[in-house]
């Protein structure tokens, strides 16, 4: 079986996620294609989707304009695994508000049962790197690169906490949805991408 994985390519760090996913597939010995996707047709054909880091307001508006938002939502509802990173986490959420500005009127996929606080750790000067762990998905130690990162304030009972930084929830899983507030694609450690690829096709042992 060959996997068809897409990285939503409207805006943000698309290329970095393509490289990380290809590396992850290589180490797992899996075959398939990883490419940038923008159109509803391209998204319809996918087995898995990554929504990368960038600006969630822009991605929401542009995917609404070209009809991609609707197709992404249908695909995830029908079981396609999705990996949301930073802006991707915000886009997947049911509810997002900004730490300073407050309630936002931005298009969201409204699937992940969490309330996200945008820019939760402050502005760019407060962006940081720290060691974090995601034991429940088999990643005991990795570098968390937090860039104007959001955090998860509140969540439904179906949502599993995957990682925390000091008391703030920074990674969650809900069924076929994996979402993180930091940027594994900016490090050399592809273990979270490996876990996501594994969600698409369980590892054969």
């Amino acid at each position: 079986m060959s996997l068809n994985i897409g990285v939503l390519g409207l805006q943000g760090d698309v290329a970095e996620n393509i490289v990380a996913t290809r590396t992850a597939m290589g180490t797992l010995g899996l075959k398939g294609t990883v490419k940038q996707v923008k159109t509803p047709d391209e998204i319809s054909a996918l087995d898995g989707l990554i929504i990368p880091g960038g600006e969630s307001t822009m991605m929401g508006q542009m995917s609404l304009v070209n009809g991609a938002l609707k197709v992404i939502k249908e695909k995830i509802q029908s079981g396609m695994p999705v990996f949301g990173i930073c802006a991707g986490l915000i886009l997947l959420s049911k509810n997002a508000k900004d730490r300073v500005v407050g309630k936002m009127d931005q298009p969201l996929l409204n699937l992940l049962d969490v309330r996200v606080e945008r820019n939760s750790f402050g502005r760019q000067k407060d962006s940081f790197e720290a060691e974090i762990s995601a034991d429940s998905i088999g990643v005991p130690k990795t570098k968390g690169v937090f860039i104007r990162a959001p955090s998860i304030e509140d969540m439904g009972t179906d949502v599993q906490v995957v990682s925390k930084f000091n008391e703030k929830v920074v990674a969650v899983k809900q069924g076929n949805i994996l979402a993180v507030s930091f940027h594994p694609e900016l490090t050399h450690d592809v273990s979270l991408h490996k876990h996501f690829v594994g969600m698409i096709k369980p590892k054969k042992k």
Partner: protein
Amino acid sequence: MIPLSGNLDSAKGKVSEKVGPVSITRGTSTLKRGFAHMLKNGVVMDVTTVEQALIAEEAGAVSVMVLDKLPSDVRKAGGVARTASIRVIEEIMDAVTIPVMAKCRIGHVYEAKVLAEANVDMIDESEVLTPADELRHIWKWDYTTPFVNGARSLAEALRRIEEGAAMIRTKGEPGTGNVAEAITHIKKVNDELRLIKSIYDSGDNQDLIRMAREFKVSYELVEQTAKLGRLPVVNFAAGGIATPADAAYLMSLGCDGIFVGSGIFKAEDAKERARAVVLATTFWEDADKVKEAQRMIDERQSMLGLDVKNLELKMQERGTA
């Protein structure tokens, strides 16, 4: 993938501290350059008021750049152009959720410090403002806040990166509504990248060292860039962009994104134009979508624009290269 290497051990902008029981580091190259990576394929819009910033955010801008006057008004006003009012910057930071950038004068260490303290997300050391130091640029490694700098050639771009810039943009000719200079600058950078890449591929180390001497930057940076075949940081287009077609053309030349200065808020159809420029930048590969974006604007409402040949002030020539 663009590597996030290029750390300087003596960088004072890198800060390690404890938050509760956990050690964190701020101001690393990964964080500063990584921030620029999140802007890729996006449009950064020049704004002077909260109202304009909200229009930009609504239109899908990835960031706003706060100025006291739009570049074309800086040109008209003459005199000394300085950094924007801190109060206006703060009002805008409180009103929008997207990152907020602001410009400081070339070489003006304390305008930069003030902007960093005000907590803007990125500082543009910009030729749109009057240079404060004709001999040097700011040593940007000293700041936790990332910087973007303008460049007209590969040598200029690499010198700014060596000084710690986390992002580069073309200079173009700001405030003219004339995209010709931005096109010239990105094509020159691309030509020079092709040249050093071919030297690298041929294995001619001596010639690569010759290029480093010509560019007045370290051999390591030239080698890294030559190996990549592109700048080791995100590279945007800027200076004179006024229409969706301008933005799409520059994206097709390999720019990672677009800065629009006077082009939007000096036009009479700013709201529609802001949306149209974002649309054309996002879908630049699709000529039909760029046409749709171009249909959203009315050329009779574009800023009039200036012929670069007849300018009294060439902003691109300000400051040391």
